[in-house]
């Protein structure tokens, strides 16, 4: 299956759910869906496109919204599903029911961006170190960090 065929097939299968399908590079396909259609799209990819292998989930802080990318890989191509959620109500559905291996990446999203993943099997709050203050999400662009003062051993501090 060539890239163009996959793009055509995706457009046909998903219909209006596919907001945008692009093919910027060899074997790289970016598919954009609404955040509500995500689980359906992932299920379709897994069942019909041989995409059981989820490479990772990346989040990007785009100011007003969070962009979330699910990177799938199949022998034919690398399909990246893109979806966006508003920063005001950052809710996204969990895909662990479809792909169990996604759990780590979803937890990472929760930790780093403060996204809320609905229906995640293990929603324990995961903060980076044990003593991490709540409400700090390091990968948000507006999160700033101040370095603690360093001690110079044996000298002036």
């Amino acid at each position: 299956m060539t890239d163009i065929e996959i793009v055509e097939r995706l457009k046909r299968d998903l219909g209006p759910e596919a907001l945008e399908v692009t093919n910027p590079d060899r074997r790289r396909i970016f598919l954009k869906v609404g955040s509500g259609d995500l689980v359906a799209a992932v299920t379709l990819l897994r069942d019909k496109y041989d995409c059981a292998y989820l490479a990772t989930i990346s989040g990007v802080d785009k100011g007003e919204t969070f962009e979330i990318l699910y990177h799938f890989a199949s022998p034919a191509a690398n399909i990246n599903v893109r979806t966006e959620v508003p920063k005001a109500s950052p809710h996204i559905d969990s895909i662990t029911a479809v792909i169990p291996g996604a759990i780590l990446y979803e937890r990472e999203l929760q930790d780093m961006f403060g996204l809320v993943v609905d229906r995640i099997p293990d929603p324990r709050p995961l903060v980076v170190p044990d003593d991490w203050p709540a409400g700090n999400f390091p990968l948000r662009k507006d999160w700033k960090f101040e370095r603690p003062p360093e001690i110079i051993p044996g000298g002036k501090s």
Partner: protein
Amino acid sequence: MLNKLVRWSRIKSPWILHLNSGACNACDIEIVAALTPRFDVERFGVLLKATPRHADVIVASGPVTRQIKDRIIRIYDQVPDPKFVIAVGACAMSGCVYRGAYNIMGGIDQVIPVNVYVPGCPARPDAILDAVVKLLGKL
């Protein structure tokens, strides 16, 4: 006389504990490489020990992450006196490229006292050997 004997034995038999506080593995594999036939630290009586209770010298590598800080102090306390710390690699000295990252507290000397610093990213096994020998020469 007795003091001399004890000092001699300390110089001749430093047992090390390898402590990784969030390093990138490079210094760690070089420390392990120092045990292997090419470098072979056992010639000098150096043994890698598993528990802090048996060790004399802590060989620490890596910047200190926020999560592991308390554990490092606990491990340092578990080592019986007299104890020494060798900071291996640029990260253990100052934080190296990670200096300024939000989860890094800086070099290992921010948490426990350090006796010897070994520069290098990563430090070569020869340099680590040299550090152990120099440390013992200072006794």
